């Protein structure tokens, strides 16, 4: 195995472990003077939950993002699950709802993204691209503190 291939394998392993699931919040106050249609008053933080999965021959799961509830931090944390496929709308939705409930927030502008078709083909990475594929799903939303009263019909 030459050096380039070794580096590639290390990078693949690192990306599997490090980048499979992330939960990102905007900093408090970033949406302070922004109003969102259908919401009276101030909104909270924007949230982006992202999961990826890696597969051999496009079908056998090698590693995938695992959204786990942390009792210590009272929030969802991104982790990695090996040899199972945890990338799905249901997992994202469950994580988003748990975060909203734990922060006593409602949700606005919930939007799912499915990049499931973005398998790495031979044109991307030669033998690596032929053997490995990846999928990617995410959800974004705006957290709205529950003291905010929603307008009827909007």
């Amino acid at each position, binding site marked *: 195995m030459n050096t*380039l291939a070794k*580096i*590639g394998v*290390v*990078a*693949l392993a*690192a*990306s599997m472990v*490090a*980048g499979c699931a*992330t939960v*990102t*919040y*905007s*900093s408090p106050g*970033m*949406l302070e*003077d*922004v*109003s*969102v*249609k*259908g919401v009276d008053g101030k909104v909270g933080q*924007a949230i*982006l939950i*992202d999961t*990826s999965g890696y597969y051999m021959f496009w079908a056998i799961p090698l590693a995938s993002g695992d959204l786990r509830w942390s009792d210590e931090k009272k929030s969802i944390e991104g982790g990695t699950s090996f040899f199972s496929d945890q990338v799905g709308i249901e997992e994202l939705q469950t994580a988003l709802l748990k975060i909203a409930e734990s922060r006593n927030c409602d949700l*606005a*502008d919930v*939007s799912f*993204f499915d*990049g499931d078709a*973005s398998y*790495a083909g031979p044109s*991307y*990475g*030669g033998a*690596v*691209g032929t053997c*490995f594929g*990846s999928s*990617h799903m*995410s959800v*974004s939303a*705006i957290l709205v503190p529950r003291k905010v009263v929603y307008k009827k*019909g*909007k």
Partner: protein
Amino acid sequence: MRMNIKSLAVLPLALLALAFAGCSSYTEIARWNSNVPINDGEVPVATFLTQNFSYQLLGCIPLCTGRPWTEGNEEVVDDFNVKPFADEATLDNNLVSLRHALDVVGSHRIAQFRATEDDSAFWSLLLINRHEVRTQCIILKPEAK
């Protein structure tokens, strides 16, 4: 065709040039310019989209990044604002661009907010990871009181 050492040395430079060339922040405000309403009959002011890229060697060493859009008017739709050895492709920086866009348009009311992020490294045989964060929304007129 035989490859010599000199031609191999060009490869990392080519990768770096590619990274810098494609590494940018892109922001666009598109005025609605029509009376066609969306959803419940409200006519938007504009559509907003921003995307920010950053590149990391082996997924962890920052090579370069696009920066958020913080100056200029809506005519500046494409901003190749590159900063080396940093990673500024974040949700927060996209919101910085959004806030500037709202200031430019003159309304801070939005709908259909959406953010996505993506990582891709297969294009460079996993040597360089491209991190991409996109944010988009529709800007509405301020609510009548």
